């Protein structure tokens, strides 16, 4: 992580009346890296992006793009940003090309010269002359992504870019995102497609109720979730008791048995202990936590009666 910081937020807070949508969020995106912004619906992802783009005024804190405070020097700051919002909106009565031309005129510089190459890059060259209202959801997403690159930005913000795309389209977008990072741009990717994030992101930020609850590389995040054994066994209560006796601290009951967080080398020991007690497991499968497992664990709704992990 040695690239120049292209986006930094400091203690970003947004309250809508009594609801705190974003609560003291600090994040950083550097050139050449793809940072995933993860969180369940309503976690504050789009609000965060809105504040970064100056669409939403923060209640407290600040967002800086290329060192420029978005609230104070918004136009200058956004000159270095290409952003695609969750809902891609363009003028329905204009063609895709004309919509991009409009954005290019707004952007200035060499943006106009990039319109046709970008249409070609996003696979829209054939339909560039068609009205936006005739575009499929996937084509709209592609046009939205094309619009983010008109200004040759240092920071690209993509909010759910794969929405509406077929698997081939999703793959193309993943490749494009990696290309963007390869072109020394910073990419902030908000997505609920965890496998997408897992495949393209260098770092992940998990937010819940507007607070950052985990951050790091995919490896760091999933290591936090730990390796575990999926044990298929009857009498789960007794099995859990026996395993706790071996010093295993984290055990979750599942419909077919137990998920037991333990070092992968302890498989035989667990099996022996259960067998010694007359409990024969039909399967003991070592598993590594996926991003999805960790995400679900981190963001699962809090139950008022929930007790600490056993």
């Amino acid at each position: 992580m040695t690239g120049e910081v292209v986006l930094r937020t400091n203690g970003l807070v947004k309250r809508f009346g009594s609801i705190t949508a974003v609560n003291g969020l600090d994040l950083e995106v550097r050139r050449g890296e793809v940072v995933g912004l993860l969180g369940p619906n309503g976690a504050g992802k789009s609000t965060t992006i809105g504040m970064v783009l100056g669409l939403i005024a923060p209640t407290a804190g600040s967002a800086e793009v290329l060192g420029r405070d978005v609230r104070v020097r918004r136009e200058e700051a956004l000159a270095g940003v290409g952003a695609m919002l969750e809902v891609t909106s363009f003028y329905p009565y204009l063609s895709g090309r004309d919509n991009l031309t409009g954005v290019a005129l707004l952007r200035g510089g060499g943006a106009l010269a990039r319109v046709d190459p970008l249409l070609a890059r996003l696979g829209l060259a054939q339909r560039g002359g068609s009205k936006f209202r005739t575009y499929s959801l996937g084509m709209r997403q592609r046009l939205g992504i094309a619009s983010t690159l008109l200004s040759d930005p240092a920071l690209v913000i993509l909010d759910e870019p794969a929405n509406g795309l077929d698997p081939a389209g999703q793959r193309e977008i993943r490749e494009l995102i990696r290309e963007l990072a390869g072109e020394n741009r910073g990419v902030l990717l908000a997505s609920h497609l965890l496998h997408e994030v897992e495949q393209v992101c260098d770092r992940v930020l998990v937010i819940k109720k507007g607070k950052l609850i985990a951050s790091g590389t995919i490896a760091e995040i999933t290591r936090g979730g730990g390796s575990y054994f999926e044990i298929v066994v009857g009498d789960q209560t007794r099995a859990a008791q026996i395993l706790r006796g071996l010093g295993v601290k984290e055990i979750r009951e599942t419909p077919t048995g137990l998920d037991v967080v333990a070092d992968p080398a302890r498989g035989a020991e667990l099996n022996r202990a259960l067998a010694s007690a007359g409990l024969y497991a039909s399967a003991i499968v070592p598993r590594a936590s996926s991003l999805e497992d960790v995400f679900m664990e981190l963001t699962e709704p809090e139950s008022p009666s929930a007790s600490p992990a056993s």
Partner: protein
Amino acid sequence: MVRRWMPWIMLGLIVLTAFLLYFLIWASVNAQLQAVKNGTIPAPAGGTAQLEQTLRMIAPDRVAQFGVGLVSGLGSVMLIVFAASHVGTEFGWGTFRTLLAHGASRTGFLVAKAVSLLLYAFVFIVVGTLAAIGASYAVSAVAGISVGSGVDVAEVTRAAVKAGYIFLPYMALALAIAVWSKSAGAGIAAGLVVYFAEGIVATLLVSLNKDYAEIVNWGLSRSVSAVTRAGSSAAVPDPTASTLPDPTRAAIVLAVYCVIFLVLAYWRLRSRDVTVGG
């Protein structure tokens, strides 16, 4: 704007309406005159002078009163619709949010909208006035009405400038409501309600008691009437005309309304959090 149908349709409508109304007035009045002459219907109490006077409205030398008045009346309604739609659809389509995300400034957005509306109002009044002149000459030729001294260009220009000026507060009102409500429909509805209802209420109040003029003369409709009637004879007589405000004061009142509406729109646009839908 030039790629949208709405501005072109409105220009087409004002041209068509001008020709149609001129023709209908001639056809209807001429039919009545013929009927009176043939004895099919009895002559009106004052003879046919009134009908002939109405027919004279068609002549090119009356375009400043009748033709421009027609464009002004219809134009106010059409431009209220256009102003609200021009701004409100940006929120409905979500394009306001897209523009901001691509670095456009809120101030720039409002200025661009206001300037384009101003330009459109100018084009509208020019096209409408030219259509009225054309319709006047065409129907006069068909009806055999003397063109007299022809169009008084200076008078028609003065009338057109006044007509264009009175569009502005209503357009600014429709724009402000559309910005506040993020809806073209709300802007159109509010603009039309104010346009029609305020005028009716003001006239009614002044008819009941002339002292009310002191209050209603600070409103839009009475100020518009004062500006329209300044220095020219009105096409439609107004029994409360004697209580209208001074035209200069009325013009200033209208300008102040424009500023107030634009400032309110600006303030709302500046302070609003732009979430999904604008």
